[in-house]
Every structure is written in structure tokens, then in C-alpha cells.
């Protein structure tokens, strides 16, 4: 193809200019590769951060709604409020099961709590202390507070939010604890309660309800509560001292055998999208949820960690756009000068019958040949340096994600971070094995992959083409005769 041959001759002839164009494109390509690598890494981080959190919905009591109807300064109003408060219909486990049967809900878990008294153990307390134990739900505190212990059953690992968020950490645990924890009468107890009653792993404790039915549980783990200023200031015991952690089915079997027992259920629903919360709430009301309850999501928490990454991401975008604009303008100017200087050549080529299309193709090929070479070189240089640049920019984010994973492992009783935890991997598979799995970031390296290269090639070539549009248009408009006359 003689067009390509001509293009090649022209490139060699205009060495200086083409080297200049090449260097500009090389710099742009280099900058783009680095920014694209940073952006890709940031997006990956954000994704994995978002995936680390399920989209959770919980039911909570809408206090503000309650309060606005009453004037608390009037004793009459306070009475009304209390009465009204007591009359709010709570929800039961069967309500929760019916709520969960919704197209918006992917899965759910719950804690199921019931108040019981000790049979062979004593409540950890100081005589004068009138503390209420850690309460569940809303409006039912009175019932539970009359018993010694709160037996909290978790439906799955995901439900054990106190362990995930670090409120509780496991001190001691039997070897097979996680294999049996969700099936049968096993409990994790607070270190304080263990000390108070001199209890050890594998000891059996017996609880009883008000009718005298007894229930035996084996201790498979001892945890402690990490006080962060939340504990009652007057108490020497933490809130959870008298909380016994077991599984939901153990609690269910107790409540079914004694229907008079007041149980509290705290469900968490995993939804597919935060957008559907409103619809879900309406659906819940239709299914009988009291309108004093509202749905709350964990969206804010889930997104709180990504803001710094998002800042880096948007900075990278701005940088990319500015680079492209400046580069585009410079290329545009060079192209215009190029065309002006080569008017005579264009005139001659047109008079000997080379069509506008072919001539345009020749000029574009010249640019494309130069820019592809420069793009490849620039991408290479950018790839080599991008790893260092973006990894150091995103270093703290990557580290904190890894630390977080280790931390959760420790909370669940892993001796050395991940050792007690399964590797981060297929979450569902792990869940199936009953192992505690909480996913955090994958370890991410900012790398220039095929995606970055293709993006770069696309960006680069469109930049070249856009910046040469004006010169291409002027080729179409040149009248060869005028050009040749100018010359003579």
C-alpha cells in the first residue's frame, strides 16, 4: 500500500517533529498508565470493601416517632407514653420468618434471647447492684431482668456481630468448638462468670426456667467483653457477664417446650440492594410489623471506610482528564502546524490525483504509527513505575484491610490471627463448614493488566484522532490550485 509507504517516508523525513510528538504521547501514555492503574486498584479496593460488608437491614424502634406525640414535661403525657410503649406489639420468631420470605432478602440471621435462672451456677453480681443485664429488643426488658441469665442464641456466624466488631473476643475455646457450636446445647460464657463460678471449658452448667424445667449446657468457649467506656460505671462486671452465648436452635427448643417463656428476637436481613429498603419496610408493615418500628441499614458504616480511597480515585480521574486536555491541545497545535507546513506537499499530491480520503489516511497513518510506538513505550515505562506509585498511595488502605481480617480471626479465638480462621476464600464454602469467615480486602497489588493496556490504547488513539480532526478537515477544504499558486 503506497499510502503506508508514503507515511513512512514522511515520518523519516520529519524526524524532529515526529520525535516531539512521540515524546508528548509517551509522557501522556506514561501518566495515563499510572493513573489508570491507581484507579483500577482503587475501584478494586472499593469493591472488595463493599463486598466485605453484607447489605444489612435491622429492625429498630423509632423513638423520635414515639416522642413527638407526647410532651414529656407533663406527667400525664409521660404516663400515656409509657402505656403506649408497653402496648407496642413486638415481633416473634414466626413474624421474622414471614418477614424473611421476601424477594428483596437474600438471607437472614438472628439472635434469639431468652431469660433463665441458674441452677448450678450463680449470677455474677454485687449484692447492692441493681443492674439490668444486657437487654434485648425493645419493651421487654422487664421480663428478662427478672431472671439471672440471658441465653442468647445466634442463628449463624454472621449473626455474631459482637465477635465480628470486636466487642467480645474469645479467650479460650475447645478445639472442635466451631464444629459443634451451632448444633446442640453448647455455650460460650463470659470470663467473669467463669471466674465467679469457677468454671472451665467442658464444664456443664444447668439453667432453669420459672416452672422448674432444667436445661443443661456444655461450655465450649470463654470470651471477654472489651469495655470501651460502655459498661456501667458502678459495676465491676461487664454488661455481658451474665450473657450465655449459644445457638438459635438451642433457644428455639427451650421456647417451644415452654410457651410461656418470653423470648426476644433480633433479626438481621441481608438484602440485594439498599435501594429496596423502603419497599421492604412497606412489605414488613403489611405483614404485621408495628409502625413504630423502622428498618435501618448498615450502608453508612459499609461506606465509611472507602472515602479515602474514593478521594484518591477522584483525584486520579481529575489528573487523567487534565493530562488528556493539555496533551490534546499540544497535539492539536502540532498537527495544525504540521498541516500548514505541508500545504505544498498536499497540493502536489492532490494534483497528481491522490484522493482526499487517501491523503487523510496517509496523515492519520503517520500519526498512528508514531503514537502507537510512543504509547507502547509509555505504557511500558508507566507499568514499571505504576506498581510502586499506586501501591504506596494505597498502602494504608491495603494494610488496614488485611489487619482487619486478622483482627476478626482473633476475636473468634484464632491463636495467631488467621490461624484460627480459614483462609480468605470462598465464603459460602467456609460458611458451610461452620467456620467463622469474615471477608475483608483481598490483598491487592496495583498492577497494569490487560484492561489498563486496552483502556490506554483506546484513550491514546482517540486522543490522537480527536487532536488531528481539525487538520483532517483542513485537508478536505484545501484547493490544490490555490496552494500551488501560493507557492509560485
Amino acid at each position: 500500500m503506497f499510502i503506508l509507504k508514503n507515511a513512512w517516508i514522511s515520518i523519516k523525513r520529519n524526524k524532529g517533529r515526529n520525535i516531539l510528538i512521540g515524546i508528548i504521547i509517551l509522557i501522556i501514555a506514561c501518566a495515563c498508565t499510572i493513573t489508570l492503574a491507581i484507579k483500577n486498584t482503587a475501584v478494586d479496593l472499593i469493591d472488595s470493601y463493599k463486598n466485605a460488608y453484607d447489605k444489612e437491614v435491622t429492625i429498630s424502634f423509632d423513638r423520635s416517632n414515639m416522642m413527638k406525640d407526647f410532651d414529656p414535661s407533663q406527667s400525664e403525657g409521660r404516663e400515656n407514653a409509657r402505656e403506649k410503649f408497653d402496648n407496642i406489639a413486638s415481633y416473634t420468631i414466626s413474624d421474622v420468618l414471614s418477614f424473611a420470605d421476601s424477594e428483596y432478602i437474600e438471607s437472614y440471621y438472628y439472635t434469639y434471647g431468652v431469660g433463665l435462672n441458674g441452677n448450678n451456677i450463680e449470677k455474677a453480681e454485687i449484692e447492692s447492684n441493681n443492674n439490668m443485664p444486657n437487654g434485648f429488643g425493645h419493651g421487654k426488658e422487664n421480663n428478662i431482668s427478672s431472671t439471672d441469665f440471658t441465653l442468647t442464641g445466634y442463628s449463624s456466624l454472621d449473626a455474631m456481630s459482637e465477635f465480628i466488631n470486636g466487642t467480645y473476643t474469645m479467650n479460650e475455646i475447645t478445639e472442635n468448638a466451631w464444629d459443634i457450636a451451632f448444633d446442640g446445647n453448647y455455650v460460650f460464657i463470659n470470663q467473669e462468670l467463669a471466674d465467679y463460678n469457677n468454671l472451665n471449658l467442658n464444664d456443664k452448667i444447668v439453667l432453669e426456667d420459672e416452672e422448674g424445667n432444667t436445661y443443661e449446657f456444655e461450655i465450649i468457649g470463654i470470651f471477654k467483653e472489651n469495655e470501651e467506656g460502655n459498661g456501667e460505671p458502678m459495676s465491676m462486671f461487664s454488661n455481658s457477664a451474665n450473657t450465655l452465648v449459644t445457638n438459635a436452635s438451642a433457644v428455639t427448643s427451650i421456647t417451644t417446650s415452654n410457651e410461656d417463656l418470653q423470648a426476644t428476637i433480633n433479626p438481621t436481613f441481608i438484602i440485594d440492594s439498599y435501594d429496596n429498603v423502603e419497599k421492604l419496610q412497606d412489605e414488613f408493615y403489611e405483614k404485621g410489623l408495628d409502625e413504630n418500628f423502622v428498618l435501618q441499614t448498615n450502608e453508612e458504616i459499609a461506606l465509611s471506610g472507602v472515602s479515602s480511597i474514593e478521594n484518591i480515585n477522584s483525584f486520579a480521574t481529575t489528573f487523567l482528564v487534565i493530562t488528556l486536555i493539555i496533551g490534546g491541545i499540544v497535539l492539536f497545535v502540532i498537527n495544525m502546524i504540521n498541516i500548514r507546513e505541508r500545504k505544498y506537499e498536499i497540493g502536489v499530491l492532490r494534483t497528481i490525483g491522490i484522493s482526499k480520503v487517501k491523503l487523510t489516511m496517509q496523515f492519520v497513518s503517520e500519526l498512528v504509527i508514531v503514537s502507537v510506538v510512543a504509547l507502547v513505550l509509555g505504557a511500558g515505562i508507566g507499568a514499571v513505575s505504576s506498581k510502586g506509585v499506586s501501591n504506596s498511595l494505597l498502602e494504608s488502605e491495603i494494610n488496614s484491610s488485611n489487619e482487619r481480617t486478622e483482627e476478626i480471626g482473633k476475636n473468634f479465638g484464632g491463636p495467631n490471627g488467621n490461624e484460627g480462621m480459614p483462609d480468605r476464600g470462598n465464603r459460602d464454602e467456609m460458611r458451610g463448614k461452620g467456620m467463622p469467615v469474615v471477608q475483608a480486602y483481598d490483598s491487592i497489588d496495583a498492577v497494569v493488566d490487560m484492561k489498563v493496556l486496552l483502556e490506554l490504547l483506546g484513550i491514546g488513539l482517540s486522543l490522537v484522532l480527536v487532536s488531528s480532526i481539525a487538520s483532517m478537515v483542513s485537508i478536505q477544504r484545501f484547493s490544490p490550485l490555490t496552494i500551488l499558486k501560493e507557492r509560485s
Partner: protein
Amino acid sequence: MADKEKNNYVSKDKLGKNFTHKKQIVKNNEVKDNKEMKEKNTSSKDIILSIKNASYRYSDAEENDYALRNVSFDFESGKIYAIRGRSGTGKTTLLSLISGLERCTEGEIIFDGKSLKDRNLDKYRNSDIGIVFQSYNLLPFMTASENIILSMDANGLKLKNKKEKAIELMEKVGLKETYADRKVLRLSGGEQQRVAIARSLSYNPKMIIADEPTGNLDKQTETEILEIFEKLAHEEKKCVIIVTHSQNVCDAVDVIYDLKKVAK
């Protein structure tokens, strides 16, 4: 004009030594007057190019400021023509119409039975006609042979050894083979014009159009170049059209067309 001999217009003595003496001189406005007679003649003639009532106004010129007005000329194969006229009468403009670099504002030009309006003008320029300019219009950064080969490429000529053919063409216009690899800027004006002629011949067009091809050359060189054109017309039966001021050229051609300034 005193030496205008309309009857000789139909002379078949094209190859005769004395053809220059039977030369026909036509003014553009007079051709129109003798239209009937002319048309009778054309039917029996080998007309390759016919300009019919062509007018041209530059796009940036004023409403009535025509560079050319109602020009009608016919050109036959095997003849050499001169287009003559004072400066500014539109000779170059006419050539740019004939060579398809511009399109007529009014009227039309018919080449080989088909109007230029219906032709792909790029194809027309790179295969049907060859153009030679006063200022040669070669690409200075290329060698003589590269310039010629470029024109073959534009034509799409399929040829194994284009360079050989280029050298052959250069020899035909009186250039030694040793010039083939020289950058054109290192050739003299006359040599450059020969390269330009060789270039215009590279795809063997039916018609050669030259705008003051000898304007920058001395008389001796002019004569030599004219001989090339005469040969092309009389031996290779091409139609050669030369725009010129030179009496020397007018003496050598078969037909002279006079262009008069457009009345404003």
C-alpha cells in the same frame, strides 16, 4: 487576426512539415459565432476534450466578477494546442477547469464523451490526463525517480519494476539515468521540468496539459521541451494543451486559442 484561416481548420495534413503554416487561430467569442459549422466538423473529428460554454467565478469573487465567461473550445487527439492571452485573461483558471482541479460555475467540459461532472476527478487526474506546471510542482524531498513512481502509485499502476520504467521515461524526455537518484532540488529548472513531464507521462494519459511549461526556461531548452510535446502529439497521438506567452511555442503548435479578458 490576419492569419486566421478557417478553411484550414479541417486540414488532415497533421503530420505534414508545413502544418505550422496552416495553423488555425480561434478566439473564444468567435467560436460561438461559428457554432454550426464547428459542430459539423466535430462529428468527423477525433475530439477528446470539449469545453462547452464554460464560465467560472472564484468562490471569493463578487457576484458578476467572472474569471472566465462562456468559453467553448474543442481539442482533438494527436494535435498540439496553445492557449494564448494577456495576463489575467483566465488561462490558468481554464487549465484548472480542464484538469478537474476546479469545477465550472456554468457550462460543462466533456472528456472522451463523458462530462467531468460525472467523473471521479481524482481518477481523471491520475489516469486520463497529465499536468505540467510552470513551477514544476515536484516534491523536493524526493528523488527524480521517486516523484515519477509516486505518480504511478497514485494511478495504481501494477508494475514489477517501477524504477526501471521511471528511468525509461526520464530518458525519453532527455534525462540521463544518473539523475534518477538525485533529489529534485539538485536539478536545474529545465531538468526539473523534464522530470515533471516524465511524471505526467508515467501512466500514459491521453492528454497532457501544461501551464507555461517553458516560462522559466531559456529558448534552447524551450525548443527541446517543445520537441518532446510535438512528438507526444504527433507520434503518440496524445492531445497536448499548452498555456503560453511565448511566440516560440505558438509557432510550434497546430492550433492557437486566444483568450480575451472578460468584460466587466
